[in-house]
């Protein structure tokens, strides 16, 4: 299973703090984004590429080409605004 987390504005837009996703057929972060996007509605909006979305894999910043493995923790969130 891949644990997927959503933070801040994304969590609210998707009305979902996180979920477990079956890794079958998911080679990369880009594949995961594709699978989320086809859900339509808010998912299509968030992952269509129109708004900036950052991704971290196992709590390290990553990019869409990043390979995924069973057990990975993947987080999606907007640009950070701390400090």
């Amino acid at each position, binding site marked *: 299973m891949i644990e997927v987390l959503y933070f*801040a504005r994304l969590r609210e837009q998707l009305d979902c703090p996180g979920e477990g996703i079956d890794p079958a057929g998911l080679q990369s972060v880009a594949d995961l984004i594709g699978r989320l996007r086809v859900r339509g509605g808010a998912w299509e909006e968030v992952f269509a590429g129109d708004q900036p979305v950052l991704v971290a894999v196992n709590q390290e910043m990553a990019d869409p080409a990043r390979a995924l493995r069973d057990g990975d923790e993947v987080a999606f*969130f*907007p*640009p*950070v*605004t*701390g*400090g």
Partner: protein
Amino acid sequence: MHDITIQTEAFDIEAVQRELRADPAVGAVVSFIGQMRDINEGDRVSTMTLEHYPGMTEKALERIVEEARQRWDLLGVRVIHRVGPLTPLDPIVLVAVASGHRGEAFQACEFIIDYLKSRAPFWKKERTAGGDRWVDARHGDSEAEARWKR
């Protein structure tokens, strides 16, 4: 003394500076305090909530501090960041750096806060008369961070 703390409670700026200053090899302490303003983007802000990504936040900050310690000859570093609800005048973040001489302390302190602002997973949500809104990333923060890229 741990270098990094994420907490909902207010922090004691004075105690941190006293601890860093307690070493007689320290010649310079540079501190950055970031605090909540009552106006943002022209609107009055009554409260703010800081969300973060528990686990990743600490890892990101530890990596930043470790990199600063490798780049500069530092005698002490402390980063404290608040999360949860805040009101105007509340300190949000403290970055304090001690060194033998000032140049290294200034550079390391600014390096850490620039990275924190552009890379550490914190998000601010403001309450204004017009409702709640997420704060947008400032363009200047990624520019400031780019200065440090080698």
